[in-house]
């Protein structure tokens, strides 16, 4: 007879009746995203630097259409425009720039716009905007889009059809900061909920005698461990679901269309198995609830910062990198990023497999080390 479902129900009731657990599992991650999101998005300046590489040049003369667009951008007075000629390597310039941001007007742009104006079926002509996507609230795309919209209106007079569109490209990092951050927050939530949750459940119920009472019933220690772990899995998915779901809200500040796809689900599942297992191991050796909580914090917080939750591990000083490489949360974070925003399922599955191995080892150790009958 499976006895753990009743236990899961009991833990869930405690979860929603105890306001502090709701805070840590749901509100805290949202708060973190909001705070970090705003800190890293407000790094703009009054005039935004913009490189413009105009490749639509014939006999040394820029086309009229491209020239018109550059004038339009200039007229906003929002940009400090630096022209880059076709012989210069734009990527090199961007890599050296403190605010890498460039508009590329490709060859034949003027001609394509002219063609598009005369044909209703023609697809819009795109401009390329390269920028540092870690800048969460870069004002440039918004201004450029407004300019382009006005440019369209000017060209077409009474039509709402798009002639020119802006296609964004990463000018430096692979993705925006918030894209980087959201999977990290999910990883962090899985880790803290699992580790701290398991530690506090195990020490609290051992201390107040509930475990001893349970041990006199047919409930086995395997039921207990499964109950704790399945409860943590449910909570982790509720948190992750809410964080991801917020990104899809129209008014959302998160604006990340991260997806809870199969590898992401597998990773969260493996992570929620791995961390409660570690929590139970810890709870076995540190018996006093306060000391155990402190020990869990002492593990969770450094791990949070060292596992690339908030910043890419590449940015860490060299002596920290090997530490990041032995922390399970690193693999969970890397996997979640690969799965949710980078669209690299193979990388995600590889990380999921690794986290699953850690999970199996820690759960087995957790079961073996949980004392149901004292010697």
């Amino acid at each position, binding site marked *: 007879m499976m006895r753990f479902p009743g236990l899961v129900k009991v833990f869930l009731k405690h979860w929603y*009746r*105890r306001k502090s657990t709701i805070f840590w599992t749901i509100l805290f991650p949202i708060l973190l995203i909001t705070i970090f999101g705003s800190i890293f998005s407000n790094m703009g300046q009054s005039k935004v630097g913009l490189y413009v590489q105009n490749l639509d040049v014939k006999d040394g003369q820029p086309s009229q259409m491209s020239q018109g667009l550059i004038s339009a951008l200039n007229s906003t007075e929002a940009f400090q425009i630096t022209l880059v000629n076709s012989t210069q390597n734009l990527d090199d310039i961007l890599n050296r720039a403190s605010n890498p941001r460039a508009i590329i007007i490709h060859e034949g742009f003027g001609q394509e716009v002219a063609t598009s104006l005369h044909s209703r079926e023609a697809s819009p002509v795109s401009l390329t905007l390269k920028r540092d996507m870690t800048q969460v609230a870069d004002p440039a795309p918004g201004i450029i889009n407004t300019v382009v919209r006005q440019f369209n209106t000017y060209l077409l007079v009474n039509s709402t059809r798009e002639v020119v569109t802006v296609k964004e490209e990463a000018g430096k990092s692979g993705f925006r900061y918030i894209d980087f951050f959201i999977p990290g927050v999910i990883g962090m939530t899985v880790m803290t909920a699992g580790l701290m949750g398991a530690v506090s459940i195990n020490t609290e119920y051992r201390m107040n005698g*509930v475990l001893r*009472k349970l041990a*006199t019933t*047919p409930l086995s220690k395997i039921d207990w461990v499964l109950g704790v772990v399945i409860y943590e899995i449910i909570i982790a998915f509720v948190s992750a679901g809410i964080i991801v779901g917020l990104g899809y809200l129209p008014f959302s500040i998160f604006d990340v269309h991260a997806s809870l796809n199969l590898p992401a689900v597998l990773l969260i599942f493996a992570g929620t198995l791995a961390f409660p297992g570690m929590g139970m191991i810890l709870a076995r050796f540190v018996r006093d609830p306060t000391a155990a909580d402190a020990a869990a914090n002492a593990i969770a917080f450094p791990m949070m910062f060292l596992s690339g939750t908030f910043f890419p591990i590449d940015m860490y000083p060299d002596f920290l990198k090997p530490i990041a490489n032995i922390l399970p949360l690193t693999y969970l974070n890397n996997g979640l990023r690969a799965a949710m925003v980078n669209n690299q399922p193979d990388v995600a599955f590889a990380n999921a497999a690794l986290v699953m191995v850690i999970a199996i080892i820690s759960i087995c150790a957790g079961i073996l080390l949980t004392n149901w009958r004292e010697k």
Partner: protein
Amino acid sequence: MGSEPVIEVDSLVKRYGDLTAVDNISFKVQRGEVFAFCGPNGAGKTTTVEVLECLRVPTSGSAKVLGLDISKRSDLHAIRSRIGVLPQQFNTFELLTVKESLEFFGSVFDKHVDPDELIKVIDMAEYADMLYKNLSGGLKQRVGVAIALVNDPEIVFLDEPTTGLDPKARRGVWDVITNLKKNGKTVFLTTHYMDEVEALADNVNVILNGKIVAEGSPRRLISKYGGQQTLVVEEGQVEAYNVLKGILSDVVMEPNGDVLVKINSKSDIANAFSALDENNVVYGRFSVKGASFDDVFLNLTGKKLVEGELR
């Protein structure tokens, strides 16, 4: 009461490092009786009961519960399914209501009693939807007893069920225990309250330093170890003390003015009464107090047992 033993303990020893908590004890508990295990804190009561509840592994010796061997892994599940336990300093999930707690513990057993019925047994219908953490100590303890009954057990272990409760709450728990006995349950009760033993137990084992020092029914132990009856002259003051001191040997006056006299023969009572009358001594009540289980303890150990401590 039948004569079928439901618990058989033989030469049980439990050591923690150098400390011998339970030192080679043997006893039997018969089906349907209230069996009390009585002794001061640290005597080995809880260790013994936790061995029987399959919470601790004994160092040596054997114990059978309902004919099943507590040392056999394969018997543990069957034992746990058929016993009910109120552990010492009982606690349950604090954010569950009384009814939810009973439902949860019921769900853990294959066979279980309807929670509403149990709530009636402990007389807590009006508290059924109250969170456990908001209950008073006495009510919490009653919930603990109800949880111990959730699987309709054959043996109910109650480890110090009334420690820390006020007199009214203790009575409430006693009533529940009395009803258990009426319903044919075997109750294994550990306690350091002598009045509890007298009021509830059919049989008692007194345990001291891990060894059983006396066993039998409370009445038999009182007559064996309780010593003499005492004559009490309430508020007799110095006058009564002086008069009685003149004719009887073992007279003391308590600080509250009561005068106590140890009675050696029935004629002592008549003599004391007429002496007080002849000297026109004014006093409250004149009564004879039988020996109590307190005296058993005092005579066995030379000390009084107060809140679990020998003094």
